[in-house]
């Protein structure tokens, strides 16, 4: 039975502490909604679990079925059963989706997947995700629309069959029909293989479709409140202000990028 366990996780990015002691446990078949205002550590948590080298774990532990995830390289984490559907998937020119996915599937098998088995499986998944049949031959995410990139993340997830999947704002860029389709695929994977799921989303409709078994609110690098669907409903109606008051925490406001002004501009100069 798969179990991802995060204990007292502290994470730095560029010397700044983002996560300040996160505790979380995800079992198979469970769906955990990770909520919270922007800039409070949700994506950082998922990236740190996957092993993004920009994120440095300074304290705490992550285990998957008792194995030390932090001791693993990124690819080893994937092969151990973790999957991160990224908010901004990379575009890789020159590498086709089929070459990439076939290599990724072979990386976790003792014997390479026979070509025709792979083609059949890829065609089936592409069709299920209602993507264009030429997906296999296109370069990885290059020139894809936002929605296509997100669907392609789900194609990869379906073919790689992780035990625990993490989806970081996978709903952004997806229209209502695509949201339903993605939710349906996720449900099927949970039924078929008992996949556990952590999902970051600001979209109540998507969470309605996914029916999370657990919900957590991350504020200032720590989970301040956990619950079930009633928590999602309350946040959808009331926002996060009540959490600050009730749990005596301060939401981290995202720094707005300032527009660099020239020292002197036409509007500020005096006429001569």
């Amino acid at each position, binding site marked *: 039975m798969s179990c991802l366990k995060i204990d007292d996780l502290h994470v730095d990015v560029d010397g700044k502490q983002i996560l300040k002691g996160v505790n979380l446990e995800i079992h198979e078949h469970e769906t955990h909604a990770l909520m919270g205002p922007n800039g409070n550590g949700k994506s950082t948590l998922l990236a740190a679990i996957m092993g993004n080298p920009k994120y440095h774990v300074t304290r705490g532990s992550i285990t998957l079925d008792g194995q030390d995830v932090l001791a693993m390289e990124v690819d080893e984490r994937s092969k151990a059963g973790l999957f991160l559907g990224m908010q901004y998937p990379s575009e*890789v020119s020159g590498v086709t989706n089929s070459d990439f996915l076939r290599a*990724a599937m072979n990386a976790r098998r003792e014997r390479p997947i026979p070509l025709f088995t792979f083609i059949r499986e890829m065609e089936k998944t592409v069709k299920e995700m209602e993507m264009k049949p030429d997906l296999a031959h296109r370069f990885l995410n290059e020139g894809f629309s936002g929605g296509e990139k997100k669907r392609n993340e789900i194609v990869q997830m379906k073919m790689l069959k992780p035990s625990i999947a993490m989806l970081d704002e996978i709903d952004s860029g997806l229209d209502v029909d695509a949201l339903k389709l993605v939710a349906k695929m996720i449900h099927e994977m949970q039924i078929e293989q008992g996949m556990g799921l952590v999902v970051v989303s600001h979209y109540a409709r998507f969470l309605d479709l996914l029916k999370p078994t657990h919900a957590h609110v991350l504020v200032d690098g720590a989970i301040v409140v956990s619950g079930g669907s009633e928590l999602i409903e309350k946040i959808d109606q009331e926002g996060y202000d009540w959490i600050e008051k009730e749990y005596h925490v301060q939401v981290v406001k995202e720094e707005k990028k300032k527009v660099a002004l020239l020292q002197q501009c036409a509007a500020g100069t005096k006429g001569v």
Partner: protein
Amino acid sequence: MELHVSTSGFQVITLDDNETQFNLHVDKHLNVKLAIPYGGIEALRTSCIELEEGASLTILMKNVKQQKNMLNQQAVLHKDAILTIAYWEIEDGASQIRLDVQLMESGAQVMVRSACIAKEQKDFYVKCHHEVAHTKSQMEHYAIVEDEGNYRMEAIGKIVKGAHASESHQTTRVLTLSDHHNSEVVPVLYIDENDVKASHATTLGQPDENQLYYLQSRGLSRSQALGLLTVGYLMPISDLFDDATYHDEMKNEIEKRVGLHA
């Protein structure tokens, strides 16, 4: 070897080690595609290519051995002749390639491409002379420089006075896989005419860490991820041929070379 081509189509011609010189002549209005596997012979090998009016030649010089290779080629193009010449340099071993193309009559066009993995010294010198008006040259070079590798590309476009409405373009892209390498790109444009179009573009850098992380997050080791990026970088050269079998063969060879078939 003297090769006088008088029929169109795709052919593979293997150069023997004792053939230090091979000359190629393509008759008027023929459309010829040639793949020429050859190996270095630690001596200079020379070659002259001549395309008659309206002839079209696509030729792949495919170095398939690891011996030291020195190749010196000259090409002369007549009216409306089109030459596409590509260099395949993915094997270990030093290579020194020289190409001098003369665009002698209007409408002549040349495309020079190279796909290179530099583990040792790979040294290219390519010069396209535009001797008359309405001629065109395009150079596209892609190289992967491995640890301790040494790569040099000097690409020259020369447009003489009077060669108006000519175009000379060149792109060189170099991906370095280590801090310990010596890579040099020298793009040169000599232009003595005003009414021309000319450009050059060069990139030289290491693989994108975000791309590597993305590929690794799906289970590929760093070396496999680098291998995939390398294949993607060099494969455009295979577009020269429509022949699917040959295309797959070239891809297979790069994949083997970068360890994706381990």
